[in-house]
């Protein structure tokens, strides 16, 4: 297994830059998820590692050696595709054997390795079947088997679970995680589903518009999002963002908006002061907000838009000025649409972003 280094990786198509100077390092044995909305450059980045696309500039190194000039076949990587890309005219056995055959592995070793991979993925009984005779989950396993049979340095996975139904996806998610732990494989995994990334990855690389927004452990990304994009993308429902103006009065800092005002606690006041201008954006997760039915000091007034009970938890959508907040409350609470409520902020979990740069300002 191996370490993968991205050094100022750029991929452009004419004037359009799909990947803009991306740099990060995937450590040996790490499971890294590349996440972002469609068109953010995550699949392009993966294809650059695979060698299916050529770098415009920058470098990609595997175990310290540059692979940018190598053909895909010489890179010692394996890839699992979204549509599995199983060879339809080959049996499962032949599909698994193909990468070994192409690498001129001796015949008796091929048999042994295929059998081992099949055993590991519990597809031994399917070896004589053709891909079209398999269910989605089985095809997924075969695709995984074809990747792991030749023991590559790096596994690349391009949305491998998105073609499965919801139940199977959850099951395969835990199996993939287990697979990573057992093999301590280096995996780069592309997904648009932040939940998938959160649950499986050691680290997440959040991309948007071809730019790497943040690269860190999932819990750190959740707790300390680098900017408003990451804050809004990671977590479900996404973080509530409220544009405001910071005003200093009587030694305290107030965040004010359309018809509301909030005194900032010292840690957040320091952040607001560090902003490049008076414009700030407050960020709060649904779980760090409280709802009161009556006027409460230190809270801001809002009106309920809708109430969404989900069973365990009820989400209340409230309008604050031009913004809509999603707040989770106990399902026992009775709240009606158009009701006036007061929102309480847990200031220890409040984030302050610079409205100009949209970057998070660390609490002082």
């Amino acid at each position, binding site marked *: 297994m191996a370490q993968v280094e991205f050094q100022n990786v750029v991929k452009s198509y004419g004037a359009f830059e799909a990947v803009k100077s991306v740099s990060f390092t995937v450590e040996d044995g790490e499971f890294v998820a590349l996440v972002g909305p469609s068109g953010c450059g995550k699949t392009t980045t993966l294809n650059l590692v695979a*060698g299916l696309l050529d770098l415009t500039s920058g470098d990609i190194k595997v175990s310290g050696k540059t692979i940018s000039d190598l053909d895909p076949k010489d890179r010692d990587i394996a890839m699992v595709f979204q549509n599995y*890309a199983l060879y339809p005219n080959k049996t499962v056995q032949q599909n698994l054997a193909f990468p070994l055959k192409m690498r001129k592995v001796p015949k008796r070793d091929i048999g042994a390795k295929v059998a081992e991979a099949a055993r590991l993925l519990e597809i031994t009984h399917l070896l004589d079947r053709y891909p079209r005779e398999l269910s989605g989950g089985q095809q997924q396993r075969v695709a995984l088997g074809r990747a792991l049979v030749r023991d590559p340095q790096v596994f690349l996975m391009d949305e491998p679970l998105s073609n499965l139904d919801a139940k199977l996806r959850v099951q395969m998610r835990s199996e993939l995680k287990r697979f990573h732990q057992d093999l301590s494989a280096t995996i780069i995994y592309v997904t648009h589903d932040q939940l998938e990334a959160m649950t499986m990855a050691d680290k997440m690389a959040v991309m948007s518009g071809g730019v790497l927004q943040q690269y860190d452990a999932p819990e750190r990304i959740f707790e300390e999002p680098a900017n408003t994009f990451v804050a809004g993308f990671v977590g479900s429902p996404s973080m509530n963002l409220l544009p405001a103006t910071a005003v200093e009065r009587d030694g305290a800092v107030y965040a004010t908006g359309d018809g509301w005002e909030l005194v900032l606690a010292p840690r957040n006041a320091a952040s607001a002061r560090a902003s490049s201008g008076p414009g700030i954006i407050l960020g709060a997760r649904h779980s760090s907000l409280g709802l009161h039915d009556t006027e409460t000091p230190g809270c801001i007034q809002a009106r309920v838009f809708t109430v969404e009970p989900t069973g365990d938890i009820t989400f209340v959508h409230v309008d604050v000025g031009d913004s809509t907040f999603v707040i989770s409350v106990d399902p026992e609470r009775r709240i009606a649409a158009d009701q006036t409520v007061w929102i309480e902020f847990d200031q220890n979990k409040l984030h302050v972003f610079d409205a100009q740069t949209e970057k998070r300002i660390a609490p002082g």
Partner: protein
Amino acid sequence: MSRRSYNAGWSLTGWVFLILLLIFAVAPMLWMLITSFKSQFAALKYPPEFIPSNPNLEQYERLLSPKNEVGRQFLRYMANSIWVSTATTILGVAVAVPAAYAFARFRFPGRQALFFSVLFRNMFPAVVFLMPLFIMMRWMGLVNTYSSLIITYLTFGLPLSIWLLKGFYDNIPIELEQAARIDGCTRFQAFYLIVMPLSAPGIIATAIYSFITAWNEYVYALTFLNDDQKLTLPVGLQRFFTEYATNWPGLMAASFIMSVPVVVMFLILQKYFVRALTEGAVKA
């Protein structure tokens, strides 16, 4: 009217239509076969004999035996036809496969224009090109050579072949090739080992189409060839058997022999042909 009788009514109409179509298609073939078993005299009899009173294989024996003049000549034409058709087929497939693949997979300037210019030829009846092509062939000194026919048939067959195959390649997910390249193939191996077998029905259909077109072609063969020894079957038969008086049973037997390779080939490979037309090319 109940649903059942409604369906039965349609089904009956369908059958009648099918039978009419079958008669239309098969009757001439059948008449050709019947006539080929008759004697010269019986063939001209009126009213005609639907079942030959004195069937014999005399014509077939004469045509297929190299011992007599007629047989030698016939087999000679047959060999000419096989040579021209086979060369057209092999060259046609060899050009159409990479061309179609390039149109399907690569993005290059003028791709769309080039693709339509390939199809452009098919907008005109073949006869329109007869004189221009003849003059061109004379310039190139190709009149009275097989090359003149092979080149002509290629340009006529290629548009449909490329179009048909492009449909096939469009339907093969590019991820298969990418997977193959990651699994250890060169670009060419990915094409050769993965894409080619998947497009086999299309290639076979293309080959049949090229072969049959070349095998049956008459007008160009009549114009470009004048050496008696070089004629292909369609022209040769016409010349040979109608020179003084038409030998109907002989002509019919020769025609029947000529249609055998086409029919056999089609019967063996028709499932690929049908698959090619439904799977590949129909996709918009």
